[in-house]
Every structure is written in C-alpha cells, then in structure tokens.
C-alpha cells in the first residue's frame, strides 16, 4: 500500500524535527528523509534552507545526548549535506551555530559519531566561509595535531582540510612546520586515498611561497618526501595525480632551484595535459594547474609547446559546449602559453580557434569573458600579426569595445588589455576601432575613479596614437580634449602620468604640424608636461616627459623656444635646471632622453640654435654633457658626441667649449652650413666679430668637411 505523500512534505518533516514531543525514532526518520532529499540537489537544499530546516536540525543535535548516537550521526550527516559544495548551505549552517556542536562530536566515544562529525566539518572547511583557524594558539595547535594523529581517516582528513583552509601567512606556515605538522602530513602520504589527497593539498598550502619550509620539505632524508609526492604523480587516481602535480608546482614556483630535472618538468606538463581529458573537476582544474606551472616562465612554455599543449588545449576549445570553469581554465592556459613565445602564437592562430575565443567574449560568465580577453591580449602580442592587421577587424573589435561597459571591473580591465595591444595595428585600419566607438569609450574610462581602469584606458589611447595618421590623431584629440589630456599628465598615479606622456609623445610625432597640438588652449599640455618634469621623482615619468620635450624641440623656432621655457621656467632663478638632474641620473634611459632634448634644441640649421646653446652653456648643461663623453651607456655616449659635435659650430664664437675639433666630430651631423655660422656670428655682434669668426672657422670647417 502506498504511504501518504504528506509525510514527506518538507513542512511536515520540519514540524517533526521541531516537535518537543516527537520521539528519537521519529526525529531520526525525519532527519534521514531530509538528508536523502537534499543530497546532490541544490534546489532542494535551498528550499529547505528557506523553510528554516538548518536551525531545526542544529537544535536537534544540540538537544541530543552524547549516547544517542543514531540521531547525532544523522543530524551531522544532514548538516554536512547542506554544506557540501553549496555556499548558501555553509552560510546557513554557520549562522545556525552548528560549528561547536559538530566539534563536540569529535570527542564522542562512539567512532561513528566522530566520523560523522568529522565528515560534516570537512564539508564546511571546503568553503571559503568557514571560520579561520588560529594555528598560533598553542591549544589549537595541540588540537590540530590530535586530529592528524587520529586513527579515523575522516578526522585526519579534517585536520588537513583545516590547514588547507586556514593557513595563509608565513608565520603560520613556520609554526605548523615547527610543531611537526608538515612531518605528520608527509607521513599521511602513505595512508588511504582520502588521506593522501587531503595531505597533498595541505602540504602545498604549508610550503607555498615559503622557501624556508620548502627546504625543510625537500631536504630531509634525501628528499624522501619529494620522491613520495613525485611517485604520486603516477597514481592510478586522477585527483591524486593532479594534487601531486600541484604540490610539485608549488615547490618549483617557491624555490626555482628545486625540480631542475628537465624530465620531471616535462612529465608534469604531460600529466596535466592528459588530465585535461578528465570529464570532471580534475579536468577543470588541470588547466589552472598548467597555468600556474608555466606562467611567466618561458622555458616551461617552450616545453609545453613541444609537448603539443597548444593543440591539446585548442582541441578542447573546438569541442564546444564547455562548462564555464573549464572554458575559463583553457583560455587562461592558452593565454599563458602565448604570453612570450611567437611560435606558440603562430600555432594558436594556425589552429583556427579564434572564433571560439571571440564567442567567449559574449559568454554569460564574467570569468570566461575576462579569460577570453586575457587570451586575446597574449596572442595580440605578435607584432607580425599586428603588422598584418589580423586583429583589427569588426569581429574582434566590436565585442571587445562592448566589454568596455561590462558590469564587472575585471572584465573591463581585461578588455582594455586586449584593446591596448590590438590598436597598435600598423596598417591603416585604426579607423575601424574609431568607427566602433572605441575612442569614445576609452576617453570615458580615462575619467574613471578606478586607477586601474584609468591606467589601462590611457594605455590604449597611447598605443592607438602610435604612428596614427593625421585624421586619426585629430579624431582622438577632439574626443580627448587638451584639458583632459593635461589632467591625465598630472594624474595622482605615476603609471597614468607615464602613459599620458607617452600618448603626447606619439601625438606630436609624425607630421611636423602635429607639434601644434601641445600649444592649443594656451599650451595647457606643454605646461602640464613641464610641471610634471619639475616635480616628479619617478624615472619613467622623467623619461616620457623628456621625450615629449625632445619631440617638440624638433619643430620650428617657436617650438624650440617653448621647450627652453619649460626647461628654465623661472628666468633669473638660481636653482639648478631639472635637466641637469636627469643628465646625472643613474637611469641611462633618462640620460638618453635628456641628451636627445639638448641635441634637438641645438640641432644645426635652426636659427636660434646659438642663443639656446649659450643659454645651455650658462646653465651648466653643456658642461654636464661634456662630462658624459665617456658615459657607460653607448647610446648616451654617442648622443653626447653628437651634441658636442654640434657645439663645434658655435665654438668659434663662444669660447666656453673650445677644444680640438677632432674629438667630437660625428657623422650624424652633416657639415654645418658655413653661412649659418656667419649668420650666427652676425647675430652676436659686430662685423669685426664676423670677420674674426670667418677666420677662425676655416680650420674647423675644413675638418668637418673631411
């Protein structure tokens, strides 16, 4: 005869749990029923949570005597089920105060009760919401060791889970190591499957980024522990293999000196690639583990490439209908693989998976969208493909530009990263990006309160401005405006200042008329550049700022004089000009930029060159440059020689730098027009001086010719 459906209704079950009159047997049945209904069913879990089932179960466990083992076991199991893989469940369990009651079960005399309590607590410790365990309290450390010393594998597993969840600082890692926990965990590698897995995870947590602990793990007993973990990479269980690989990756990433053996590194890559085929969680996590192994390491990326990693990852992409986590992991692994090596990028592009990546840009999951952008960012580091205009097309650009208004900041930043590379485009297709509304969006984001967004959007604009044609420059400038550009140059973040200055450098490069951009609105941009140069403490800002001045100094007399004004803002001020500090910098790039500025200011053929030369001499700048004739940086030394070679032409009328002409002759300057020297002398004074200059000029001139 069928039983009445009403007895299984959630409301009825909860009534029975809450009833003070219900006997233990009735409660036991109700607990079992609740547990069975919610196992593996998130919807059911949520509906029971909404009905208040968790506090009801916790009140049963709280009110049950220690000897009523069946009810305790079922209550603990039900609580564990609510918490298993479900954050809302963990939250409800913790809010209902289940934690101390579950801990109480661990000291129960009945092994089954202890087991159920430990299982349930492990479920909770798999969540980020679980309370942090304070290892630095002696009592807690003792308790943890007691868990790890238990005969019950769920209890030792709980100990390991607590470590994996709570150990974060190096002080905690050291304390665990000193208390013998690491040794205990190594011992557990010989235990059951569950103990091995839990131990591998915990060991990785205890040694991560702590070379001192790694040496204690790797060193003793001729690396017995390391050998044991290495052996587990061949285990028959995929999860164990994955965890063993992850443990070795932590060792390698923490102490690069370890695992130098090429065979082990190659093996790690091959195992992880094989684990990608696992249809479950192991397959999902394998790509993340591969990423952590190869990220920023060109040698390992090369090994992975040789192991056919690009093809294998792309095969998974081509299969389609991937779960979000797996999709994200594969895209990120491809991004790491293509981050440094051109042959990886070429292979990736040859495999025709760009469509899958472009599809991922509009995926429901923000994490997948961001991963797709990061993948595109890596692949678009290929100058060869940028030059061919392979990324600057509407299929790629439109979804990327749309992501600039994504609700997630991390997606926006990732999209900006990809865009920054793609807009470098050396063809005449920059207009495609503008037609898609990209410039408008970048300019809008450059006003963001978030410094990362601001930095990346200005970065994108700077790269877009690189070798842009006049129309493109005009379009960007109209959208950006001189005042916004000036404020970005003076941004509180030095990294934004650097990109804004780089943008201005590109703006004034190219067609000579472009120099005029920095003079609009009362030279607001040039003033901002000068102001930053006077106040900055960052070499990068100085370098970019000096290149702006250097580029402007390639213009006409007015432009060059405006640069002089920025270098000497206060006439008659006795303070040392900032350019001297730059010329004396330890950073050769800054010295180079500063010398280029002087070189352009005194470039032969410009009418005011002599006046500027005199001023630079008077300010001690030419003396400083003379002192740099043997600069350790070849680039600086050669530019210094050019400047000194240029100064030869003024030497005859300004005795300041008189010296043998042979010393600084440099072919970069062609023969300085003799007539110009005479003209300069004429600017200086009387006809007598002109005559004198003619006479004095002869040997120098002749030498320059030959």
């Amino acid at each position, binding site marked *: 005869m069928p039983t009445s459906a009403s007895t299984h209704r959630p409301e009825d079950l909860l009534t029975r749990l809450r009833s003070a009159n219900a006997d233990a047997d009735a409660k036991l049945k109700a607990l079992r029923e609740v547990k069975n209904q919610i196992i593996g069913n998130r919807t059911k879990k949520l509906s029971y949570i909404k009905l208040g089932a968790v506090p009801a179960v916790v009140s049963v466990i709280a009110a049950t005597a220690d000897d009523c083992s069946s009810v305790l076991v079922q209550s603990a199991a039900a609580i564990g089920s609510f918490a298993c893989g479900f954050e809302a469940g963990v939250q409800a369990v913790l809010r209902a105060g289940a934690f101390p009651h579950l801990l109480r079960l661990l000291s129960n005399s009945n092994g089954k009760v202890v087991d159920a309590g430990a299982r349930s607590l492990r479920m909770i410790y798999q969540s980020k919401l679980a309370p942090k365990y304070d290892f630095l309290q002696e009592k807690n450390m003792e308790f943890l060791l007691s868990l790890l010393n238990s005969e019950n594998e769920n209890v030792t597993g709980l100990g390991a889970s607590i470590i994996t969840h709570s150990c974060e600082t190096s002080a905690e890692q050291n304390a665990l190591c000193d208390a013998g926990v690491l040794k205990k965990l190594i011992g557990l590698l010989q235990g059951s499957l569950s103990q091995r897995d839990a131990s591998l995870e915990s060991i990785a947590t205890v040694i991560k980024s702590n070379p001192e602990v790694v040496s204690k793990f790797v060193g003793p007993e001729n690396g017995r522990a390391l050998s044991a973990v290495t052996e587990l990479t061949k285990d028959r269980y995929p999860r164990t293999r994955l965890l063993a690989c992850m443990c070795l990756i932590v060792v390698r990433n923490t102490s690069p000196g370890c695992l130098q053996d090429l065979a082990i590194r190659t093996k790690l890559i091959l195992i992880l690639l094989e684990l990608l085929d696992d249809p479950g969680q192991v397959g999902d996590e394998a790509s993340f583990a591969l990423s952590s192994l190869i990220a920023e390491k060109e040698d390992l990326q090369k090994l992975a490439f040789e192991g056919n990693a690009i093809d294998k990852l792309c095969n998974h992409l081509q299969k389609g209908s991937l779960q979000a986590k797996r999709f994200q992991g594969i895209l990120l692994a491809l991004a790491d693989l293509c981050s440094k090596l051109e042959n990886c990028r070429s292979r990736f592009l040859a495999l025709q998976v760009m469509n899958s990546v472009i599809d991922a840009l509009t995926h429901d999951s923000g994490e997948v969208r961001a991963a797709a952008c990061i993948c595109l960012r890596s692949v678009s580091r290929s100058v060869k493909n940028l*030059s061919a205009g392979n990324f600057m097309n509407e299929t790629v650009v439109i979804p990327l530009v749309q992501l600039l208004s994504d609700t997630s900041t991390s997606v926006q930043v990732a999209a900006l990263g990809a865009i920054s590379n793609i807009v470098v485009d050396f063809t005449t297709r920059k207009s495609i990006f503008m037609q898609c509304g990209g410039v408008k969006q970048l300019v809008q984001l450059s006003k963001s309160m978030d410094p990362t967004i601001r930095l990346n959007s200005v970065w994108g604009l700077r790269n877009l401005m690189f070798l842009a044609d006049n129309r493109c420059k005009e379009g960007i400038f109209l959208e950006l405006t001189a005042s916004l550009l000036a404020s970005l140059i003076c941004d509180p973040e030095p990294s934004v200042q650097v990109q804004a200055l*780089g943008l201005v450098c590109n703006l004034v490069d190219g067609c000579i008329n472009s120099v005029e951009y920095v003079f609009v609105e009362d030279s607001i941009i040039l003033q901002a550049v000068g102001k930053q140069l006077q106040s900055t403490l960052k070499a990068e800002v100085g370098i970019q700022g000096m290149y702006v001045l250097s580029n402007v100094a390639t213009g006409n007399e007015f432009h060059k004089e405006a640069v002089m004004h920025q270098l000497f803002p206060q006439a008659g001020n006795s303070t040392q000009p900032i350019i001297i500090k730059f010329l004396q910098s330890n950073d050769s790039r800054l010295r180079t930029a500063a010398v280029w500025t002087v070189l352009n200011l005194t470039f032969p053929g410009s009418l005011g060159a002599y006046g500027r030369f005199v001023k630079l001499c008077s300010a001690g700048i030419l003396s400083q440059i003379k002192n740099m004739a043997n600069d350790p940086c070849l680039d600086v030394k050669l530019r210094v020689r050019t400047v000194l070679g240029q100064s030869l032409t003024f030497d005859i009328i300004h005795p300041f730098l008189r010296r043998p002409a042979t010393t600084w002759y440099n*072919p970069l300057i062609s023969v300085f027009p003799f007539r110009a020297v005479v003209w300069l002398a004429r600017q200086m004074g009387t006809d007598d001086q002109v005559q004198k200059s003619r006479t004095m000029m002869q040997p120098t001139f002749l030498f320059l010719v030959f």
Partner: protein
Amino acid sequence: MPVRVVENSAPSQVSGANLGHTSPPACTLLSVGQAFSGTQNVSSVQKDEAWRVNVRIQGCDLDHGYLCGTMEALNVPMADTPVVTFWEGEIVDAKNYTFFTGKWEASPEDDIRHWTKFPSFSPLVGQVEADGGKSLDLSNYQYIFMRWKEQYFVNVGTDCGLTIAGFYYVCFSCNDGSINGFYYDPNSSPFQKLELKSTNEGRSGFSFSSYELQ
C-alpha cells in the same frame, strides 16, 4: 676642459662565465617607429638599377634578438604601387643568434663573404671564423649586425612577380643610424646593396614614438 673620448674600436671577448649572455646595445635610433630611407641597388649584367626603399621599425625585442618592420620599395618597374613587405630580423648577439645563418641556403662561407663586405666587421672576422663569434661581447660595439628576412607581402599578392626568397645581411650604425645591407638569394644578382639613412621626416632633429604591449 676638453675630455678625451675613449674609442671602442673593437669588441672585447666575454669571459667564460658570461659566455653567450651579452646583448647588443639598446639604441634609440633602432627603436620602434624609427624610419629609414635610401636605395637598394638591383643592378644586373644587363642594366644598372636602384629602387628607392623606405623602412620602418615596428617591433624590437633585444632579449630575444628580434627586430621586425616593413620595407617599402618605391619605384619597382613591374609594380603599379610601392611594394611593402614585412620582415623579421635576427640580431647577432651571440646569445640568440650568431654570425652563422645556418638556414636559408646560406653556408658559413656565404656568411663570411657577406659579413666581410662591412668594414665594421673586420675587427671580428678572426673570432667569427673561429667560433661564429659566440665568444664576442658585442654589448658595447657601435655596430649591430642583423639578418632581415622578408616574411610576406603586405599590400600585393604573391603573384606580383617579385620574390622575397632571399634575406639581407645588415649592419646598423648606432652612431648615425645608417643601415647597410646585402641581399642574399642564390637565385638573384649577388651582393645587391641596401643603403639607408635615418630620416627625420622634415623635422629639425630626431623625433620618437613608442607603444607598449600589455
């Protein structure tokens, strides 16, 4: 007081510990965005001919000994428009690349025959003959030696009647930004000379632009 400029006329040899770990000097005149113009002599037995050539540097990665850019040939007889090609360069740095090409149908003898055409190569020839120049420290040498290999046509099809089968032996002067090169293709006229000068595009000085990949 005048200061004597110390001339580094010849590169030194690196010590054993640093063997193969020197880079050529970073030179602003060989940075991205820089443009060069000049000619390539394509004369044959039949007639004297030179094409005007423009070059633009698009990418530079000294760590990997990599340089790339475009080359535009202006008055090519069989083409209606200027022909633009994309090339990739191998910088001879004794770390990533040596003076010996080892590919593109170039034997060590071909290599030496071409490199010795550059006067700035003469101080190196002995060492290069001995070990391909692996033990040379070129990090402070005023000349950068490269091979430029055209990879594809940018604006015309492969059926344009032109070939990019060969490659250039290139010598760049950090001093004045001049570039000399010799085209090598066993099937083309030997020693076609490429001569380029750094251009400042109508400016009174040298201007720079840059991008930064993320």
